[in-house]
Each structure stands twice: as C-alpha cells, then as structure tokens.
C-alpha cells in the first residue's frame, strides 16, 4: 500500500488544560495514483489529518507510512496546497514556483521546470507578475504549480478552492482533473463540498465529528468526464448526504444546547 494510516489518534489540549480528541482511531490505505477526497463537516479534523500527513503536525499515537517510510517531518515527496494560496508576495510568480527548486537544481533547470508547470496551469503569460496583481483563482493556480514543481508523489490539498467563487471553482476543477490525468499524482483532497468530492475523486472518505472518525469509504466508479453522468452523481450525493446529515444534526444540536446552557 502506498499510503497507510494506522491507528492514528490526535489530541489537543484546550485552553482550560483539558485534552480534546480531534482524531480517533483513523485507519486508511491509499493506492498510488488514487484521487481521494476527505469529506466532512467543519471540526471533524480533516484538515488536521492532512496536516499530519504533510508532517506539519505531530501525532499523539499511531503512524503514517508513505512508500515504506514513516512520516515524522515535512518532505518534498508531499506537495501541499492550502486554502489560501500562501504565495510569497516579495517575489514574482516564476520565482514563487522556483522556490522549492533552488537548492537541488541549477538556475536554468529550475526556471525550465517552473515554466513547465506554470504552462500546465495556463499562466505562462504571468511569469513576471507579483502575487498581489493576480486574482484569487490565479493565485491558487500558481500555488498548485508550485507544489507540482517539486514533482512530489503526493499532492495534499486542503480545501484549495474553498475561498473562490463558483465559476472559478468549476474551471479549476476541470484543470485539476486534467493535471491529475496527466501527472498521475496521488491526491488527498480535503473538502466540505459533497459535489466537489464526487466530481473529482475515485474515493470519498466521509468523516464524522467530535471526535473525528472515518464514517465510511465510498468508491466513486463513474467514468470521466463525469458531467455526462449526472444521474449517477446525484445517486452518490444522496448516499453521502445520508451519512453527513446525522453529523450535521449532531453539531447543530450541540450548538443549540450550548446556547441554552450559557
């Protein structure tokens, strides 16, 4: 198995000093080249899970093995795209994409590599622009190019299109699908949008909240391009919604109880 997550637990200590469990007994196995969405309501720990795979957050217990090696720190085998583009504003688009390449490549090689991936996200005409001159969608495409430029085996995406408007998001979905088809990266895609996860992924891991657990693992076997198979998409959407509804009700009733008890 390419990525295996074994008996993973994560606890945080809240401001009163009480431990709270964010992730409980997570077990997952992901094949190389799979596009996997992690879907769940806010607070289910899906972003924390991704951050642990990235090596940015420590585990409380359990382990993550990628390609036979245990994850303890960030590495260039795992590229990450955040909800905000997180581009560095003091360097231009090309230099941003070259950022991860500076150490191991000559300047010429790094430039060529960066240009190749900027072409893939269709931003070849914006090499000299600075991040503040780009729209949100364009910034996010630069961030994707930057993550791809390291040629990682795994692409980790933490609600990458969550802050974009609907039209931009739809366009980026198509672009991401093309990139995935072309590069065959293993993608872990965190989202709270059911339709987004169905549109893009081979598998959907549905997570529940408080504590974060895996509720179910759904295979999406709709042929691509999926826009031609609307009926099947709706069928899966209803199936997923059944799982999520209970979770959302749980969150809502907890919030209501909290309000009345205050």
């Amino acid at each position, binding site marked *: 198995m390419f990525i295996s997550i074994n008996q993973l637990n994560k606890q945080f200590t809240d401001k009163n000093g009480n431990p709270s469990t964010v992730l409980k007994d997570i077990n997952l196995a992901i094949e190389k080249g799979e596009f996997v969405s992690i879907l769940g309501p806010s607070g289910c720990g899906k972003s924390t899970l991704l951050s642990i795979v*990235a*090596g*940015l957050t420590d585990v409380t217990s359990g382990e993550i093995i990628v390609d036979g090696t245990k994850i303890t720190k*960030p*590495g*260039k085998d*795992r*590229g*990450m795209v*955040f909800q*905000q583009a*997180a581009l*560095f*504003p*003091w*360097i231009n688009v090309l230099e941003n994409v070259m*950022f*991860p390449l*500076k*150490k191991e490549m000559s300047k010429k090689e790094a430039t060529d590599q960066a240009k190749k991936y900027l072409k893939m996200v269709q931003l070849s005409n914006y090499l000299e622009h*600075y*991040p*503040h001159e780009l729209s949100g969608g364009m910034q996010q495409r630069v961030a994707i190019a*930057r*993550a791809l430029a*390291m040629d990682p085996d795994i692409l*980790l995406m933490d609600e990458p299109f969550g802050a974009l408007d609907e039209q931009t998001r739809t366009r980026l979905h198509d672009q991401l699908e093309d990139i995935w088809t072309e590069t065959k990266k293993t993608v872990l895609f965190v989202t709270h949008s059911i339709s987004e996860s169905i549109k893009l992924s081979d598998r959907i891991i549905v997570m529940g909240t408080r504590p974060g657990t895996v509720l179910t693992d759904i295979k999406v076997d709709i042929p691509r391009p999926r826009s031609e198979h609307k009926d099947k998409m709706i069928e899966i959407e209803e199936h997923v919604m059944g799982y999520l509804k209970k979770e959302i009700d749980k969150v809502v009733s907890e919030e209501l109880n909290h309000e009345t008890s205050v």
Partner: protein
Amino acid sequence: MKPVFKRIIFFGIILSLWELGARLGLWTEIILPAPSKVIVSLYSGIENMTLLYDLLASFRRLAVGLAIALILGTSIGVLIAKSKTADDTIGSSLLAFQSVPSIVWLPLAMMWFGLNDKAVIFVVVLGGTFVMALNVRTGIKNVPPLYIRAAQTMGAKGLDLFIRVVFPASIPYFVTGSRLAWAFAWRALIAGELLTTGPGLGYTLRYASDFGDMSMVIGVMIIIGAIGAIVDQLIFQRIEKSVAKRWGLSS
C-alpha cells in the same frame, strides 16, 4: 479649490502679516526678524558655502550614526524575537530606553568620548537603535504562520527558512523601523550638535544665537524642518507605501 492652492494662500497670508509686522516695527528685530531678512541670511549662508559645509558635516554624522543604529537595532530585534530569554531581559528594558530622549546620554558620552563627533554619533545611535529593534521584533513575530508552513512543505528549515521567508516577510516592519529610526536620529543629531562643537547645522544655530543673529537662527530651523519633511515624505513614506502594496497589506 485644490489643497495646494489653499496651502499657498494660507502661507502667503502668514508670511505677509509677519513681514508687515516686522516692517511696521511692531516688535524689535531680535524678537522676530522679517521673512525677507531670513531669506537674505539663508542666501548668503549658501553663497559663502558655510551652510553647505554644515549640512555636509551633519549628514556625515547622521549617516554613520544611523547606519550603526540600523545594524545594531536589527541584530537586537532578531535576537529578542528568536530568544525568549533575550526578550524577557533585553526586550523588556527596550521600552524604558526608548522613552528616554537620547540626548540625555550626551553628558556621559562626552565623558567617554570627549567633546567631539563620537559623542554626537553615540547619541544618534541611541536615538535610532531602540525603535529599530522594537519594530524588527514585531515584524519577525508577525510573519504569517501560513508562509512558514508552506515553506516547510517545500523543504525549507532553519537558517534557510529565516533568510528566504521570515526575513523578507517582515520587510514592511523593517521599513517602518528605519523611518522612525531616521526621525529619532535626526532629532538627536541636531540636539547633540547644539551642545557640542562644529561644523554642523545645530552648531551654527547656537553660534548664530550667541551673536544674536536671529535671521540665521530661523534660516537654520527652516533647513532642519525642510530636510526632515522631505526625507520622511519623499523617501520613506513612498517606500513604505509601495512595500505595503506589494506585501498585500493595503488594497
């Protein structure tokens, strides 16, 4: 009406009243000489080069003092931003130092260095260092954590992370720190020069005062004010604005 016209009319009226009052003899010349006299004094000072030499001498002290202040301030700022112990000890005393006008160090400085350039430069250094250090600390502590996380996923760590991400990310604070350091250093410089030997703008101001040459006193005051305003508005505020824009801190 455009603001620039309003300003011209405003200052025109003030200067006319001032000139008129002086010519009518409403007060003696030693109290407040007429603007025309001030202009004559400035002109002759520039023509016989004395004011230019003063300006040059003052700028030399300022350049040395400010350069040391910026380097020292940056070093202290980085140290207290990165080390908790340094912040608890050095950091906590910075605000106290910053609230003491640096000119009060002059008597001690004269004992240590003598009545010369070094004493003035010392006061200029103290004027700029603390405010620079405080801004550098704030800048480094306010680097968005997202930048650091993103850089870590791209293999940056340790010194490499500091040089390529933390340092450039805090440049807006470096610029603000430099602007304030300049302002404090400029004030400290003139105060120091008033109390020591020349040449220098402050020294010429006191020299003119000793001889009752009030038109020269006002002339030097105008030069000091003009340079302060020009450097602040034409240089530092412009850099600050363009940096803030590129760093995405303003729309």
